[in-house]
């Protein structure tokens, strides 16, 4: 495990080299966050100060936590593995005495964890200072929240890796990525909380790993879900992570037989 921890640390440090880009990302997230908060808070207002259990304070917490997570979870962009398959750089990964899947995910998670510093924390700061978001006063939600957050980040990158393995067969996966982006953007609860979905959509969402990427960590961290329920969400995240890793492992084994190393 020391190896993967080292690779994760390398990802963390790599991301630290791109601070200006991180601040640009923060600005974009904050702008969109203000829009999102305007719409959702109006909704809460219209609902008489509460909608699906959200008050103005907890809704603001949802908005700024979800915006803050955008730099750390990957639900938009092509996973590193897909780029590496397409460019042929994956050849180098196979030259190392490590598991290609775990090494790739460790690198991405390292980058994601770093992004919490320039993008996650300031986003929460904006929420607290500008719109008065409600955050729990006890310690426990933060401890559980940290675990849930890490699981969410790891799960998002494991799912992205799995998506990337399609490149073994397709080489170019941009079309697939756009589809994934639409589905995950909705079902992770990025646009609106999953709990505001109509029942039929909620059922669909909860049958996928996507809420475990973003919705669950936000619920645990914001103190909306506490105690045994919080542990249950964390267990669900761990389960999805195990499944995503197992599927990625199988896809990598099968995909290797298809690998053609692009670009000589």
């Amino acid at each position, binding site marked *: 495990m020391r190896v993967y921890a080292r690779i994760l640390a390398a990802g963390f*440090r*790599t991301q630290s080299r791109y601070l200006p880009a991180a601040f640009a990302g923060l600005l974009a997230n904050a702008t969109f966050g203000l829009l999102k908060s305007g719409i959702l808070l109006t909704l809460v207002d219209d609902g008489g100060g509460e909608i699906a259990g959200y008050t103005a304070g907890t809704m603001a917490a949802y908005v700024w936590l979800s915006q803050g997570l955008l730099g750390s979870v990957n639900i938009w962009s092509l996973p590193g593995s897909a780029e590496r398959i397409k460019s042929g750089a994956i050849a*180098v990964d*196979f*030259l190392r*005495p*490590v598991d290609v899947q775990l090494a790739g995910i460790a690198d991405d998670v390292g980058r994601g964890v770093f992004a919490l510093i320039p993008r996650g924390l300031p986003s929460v700061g904006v929420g607290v200072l500008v719109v008065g978001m409600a955050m729990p006063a006890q310690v426990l939600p933060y401890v559980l929240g940290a675990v849930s957050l890490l699981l969410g980040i790891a799960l998002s990158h494991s799912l992205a890796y799995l998506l990337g393995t399609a490149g073994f067969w397709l080489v170019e996966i941009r079309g697939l990525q756009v589809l994934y982006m639409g589905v995950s953007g909705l079902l992770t609860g990025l646009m609106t909380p999953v709990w505001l979905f109509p029942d039929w959509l909620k059922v669909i969402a909860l049958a996928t790993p996507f809420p475990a990427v973003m919705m669950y960590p936000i619920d645990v961290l914001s103190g909306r879900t506490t105690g045994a329920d919080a542990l249950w969400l964390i267990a669900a995240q761990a389960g999805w992570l195990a499944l995503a890793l197992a599927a990625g492992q199988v896809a990598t084994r099968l995909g290797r037989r298809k*690998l053609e190393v692009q670009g000589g």
Partner: protein
Amino acid sequence: MSRTTPETAGPGTARPRATARVPADGRTPSSDTIVEVRGLSRDFRVRDGLKVRRLTAVDDMSWSIAAGEAVGYIGANGAGKSTTIKMLAGILVPTAGEVLTCGLRPVKDRKKLARRIGVVFGQRSQLWWDLPVRESFGILAAIHSLSRAQERTRTDELVETLDMGDYLGTPVRQLSLGQRMRAEVAAALLHRPELLVLDEPTIGLDVLSKQRLREFLVRERAEHGTTLLLTTHDMGDVERLCDRILVVDHGRLAYDGSLDGLGRTVGAERVLIVDLAEPRAELAVPDARHLRSEGGGLRQHLAFDPATTTAARVLAAVSEQADVLDLTIAEPAIEDVVRRIYERATTSSS
């Protein structure tokens, strides 16, 4: 440059399989064989509009490399060199045939093998692009489970011999190509592999950088006995570094032997160029061919086969006919020799 067969010809169905080729010097694979390739083939599917063709990059190759050898693996672009290397290293899965590297099956034992070989792809980096060079070595040391002491000794040794002290703290993306290639070679050698595979290591390097890298490789081999397999288009690399040459053409082995032997095999001629005191008509010299004259016959080019005559004999014959002021002898260019191998292979196969 690559041969294609219709998609309908599935792997290993259409082509007759030749029996394993025995190396030119009659060497037989033994316990100290480090690479053994038997009937190795690899096809690729190439999409051309709506049609899918099957392209054979490596076609039924058989050869082996003994521990401690320095082998140059040469051939034109698309001849199948990199594909072979990727199969030796466990990156690509062969379509047919067998390969054993360090006694291991590369695809099945990929991780075990990765601890025993070092590979440099001249056109790809294995370093962490955004981090200082030093960190890449640290991460690779962790990946190869080197102890702190091992890591320090080996890194110090490589930093000194490859003269990397000045730029250890520089992010990889800011290195010059020459600096980066030295770091790449160091990264491949950090875990003291038994086999070092270099795929175009001097591509794009200036003369001085090439020279330093070659000197280092010679020393590294002398000190650690590392087996070297090198693909290159630079014949200087082959001349300085290799004691055996494999020429691959259209995915097949076209030659296996020494560099001198390669010249002999294709009958490489040397050329005697003489500057005469006075213009002369075409000189007629026994065992030599007049190639061309310049300056109305003041300078004449005479080709001869070193196997049938000598430069001295040709010169003596010229001197009987004219006053020689100056002379030059042109050695056969290895590029020409290799090209002739290709040409010969092409004419004999068509």
